[in-house]
């Protein structure tokens, strides 16, 4: 709908009504496990847990999740290969190239899946108020909230204008495409200003003095969810350290 499949999934997810704090604890715990534990079996366990939770209880569409996990793959593959190429004495592979590249890809995929578990179950508008509790200034959280809300309007403008330009042969050659892209960027920028000004006028008319106050949706924390999160994360750490320690 909006062009941001991850955001659509977050609003439709079965975990939408869970407390953002609970989901953040689970997801960030998994992210840290993916980063800090040995890749075998730590990252593998984290990756499998994140995918199983997202596709199972959170009911995120497999297509959306799979596509989003694949996105950073190009960077991960190129980066991992570059890091194991050796230049000294003519180009060649580093001695433990396969192992090191594999570890990098493992950490990155598991970490990416763990972040996506949060991203596909929690809309930004639930996460931003939680930043206030981390002592991020209110003004910054408000600017970020306005950014989130204007994003979709501007993305829609972008697609509409681009479609109109394409229909008028605006992207038929590289030269025209550049010109159209410049005009497109300028149109989106002036529209964003226009939107902001109109929002401001509307809010001022409704008596806005300082700050955009919205009623926070109450999403209560679940003790069972928290207990399961802590148990699961502990299990991943223990298994990784015993199996990884025995292997190494």
């Amino acid at each position: 709908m909006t062009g941001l499949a991850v955001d659509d999934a977050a609003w439709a997810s079965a975990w939408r009504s869970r407390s953002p704090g609970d989901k953040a604890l689970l997801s960030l715990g998994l992210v840290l496990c993916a980063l800090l534990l040995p890749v075998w079996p730590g990252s593998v366990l984290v990756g499998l847990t994140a995918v199983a939770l997202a596709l199972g209880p959170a009911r995120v569409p497999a297509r959306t999740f799979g596509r989003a996990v694949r996105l950073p793959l190009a960077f991960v593959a190129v980066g991992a290969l570059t890091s194991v190429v050796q230049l000294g004495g003519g180009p060649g592979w580093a001695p433990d190239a396969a192992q090191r590249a594999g570890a990098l890809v493992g950490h990155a995929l598991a970490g990416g899946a763990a972040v996506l578990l949060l991203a596909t179950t929690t809309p930004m508008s639930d996460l931003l108020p939680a930043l206030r509790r981390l002592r991020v200034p209110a003004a910054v959280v408000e600017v970020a909230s306005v950014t989130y809300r204007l994003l979709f309007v501007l993305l829609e403008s972008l697609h509409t204008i681009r479609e109109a330009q394409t229909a008028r042969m605006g992207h038929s050659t590289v030269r025209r495409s550049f010109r159209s892209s410049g005009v497109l960027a300028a149109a989106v920028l002036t529209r964003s200003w226009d939107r902001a000004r109109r929002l401001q006028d509307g809010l001022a008319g409704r008596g806005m003095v300082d700050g955009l106050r919205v009623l926070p949706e109450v999403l209560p924390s679940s003790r069972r969810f928290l207990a399961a999160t802590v148990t699961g994360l502990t299990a991943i750490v223990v298994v990784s350290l015993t199996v990884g320690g025995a292997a190494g």
Partner: protein
Amino acid sequence: MHIAEGFLPPAHAVGWTIAAAPFVVHGARAVATEVRRNPESTLLLGAAGAFTFVLSAIKLPSVTGSSSHPTGTGAGAILFRPPVMALLGTVVLLFQALLLAHGGLTTLGANAFSMAVVGPWVGYGAYRLTRALTGNLLAAVFAGMALADLATYVTTSLQLALAFPDAETGFAGAAVKFLGVFALTQVPLAIGEGLLGVLLFRALISNARPELVRLGVLPAEPDDVLPDTPAPAGTSPAAPSTDDGDGAHR
């Protein structure tokens, strides 16, 4: 292209977060002060953040046939100044990580350092320098946007080289590798972003001149404002005016 989640070793992820923090906190202070002084700027700053996000979604045609996305922070630095971009860039990176699976949370610090700190400052410096030397706004925009893009990728390459030094040649060897893969290939795209900037600002000068004047990109010129403002009632256009910037001195 940002460093993906989980790609940097933990110590580097922490180190870059600490390195980027003062700039982002400074930006947050600048934004908070601005909002306290001027509550309606919340919406304009939010619009600027959304524009930066959307700009990075514009596909740029590239010479090699593939397409790439501009980083967008050069334009932001010229329009809204680097301290504000340090914060807006970081917010945009957080959104890209959570909405597009682009970048990551543990690598947010490293990505913020390259895209929200180094890119905008280098771009803004190049913009100011070129503008002071040549006096040409569009040339300055080209330099600013192209170098902001390139500086971002050079920083990313150096960050990767620091994290994964070459077994024999160490950091220098790794820097050559990563710069070759991630920065050299970016040169045509940086030029593309510079061209996009010239076209963007040319369109803005003709369509959004008052906004550019308000942001301080263009000087307030009385003869530019005159055609829009209706003549005050009672003054005949033929009457000789004393404070007219246009005709009185010629």
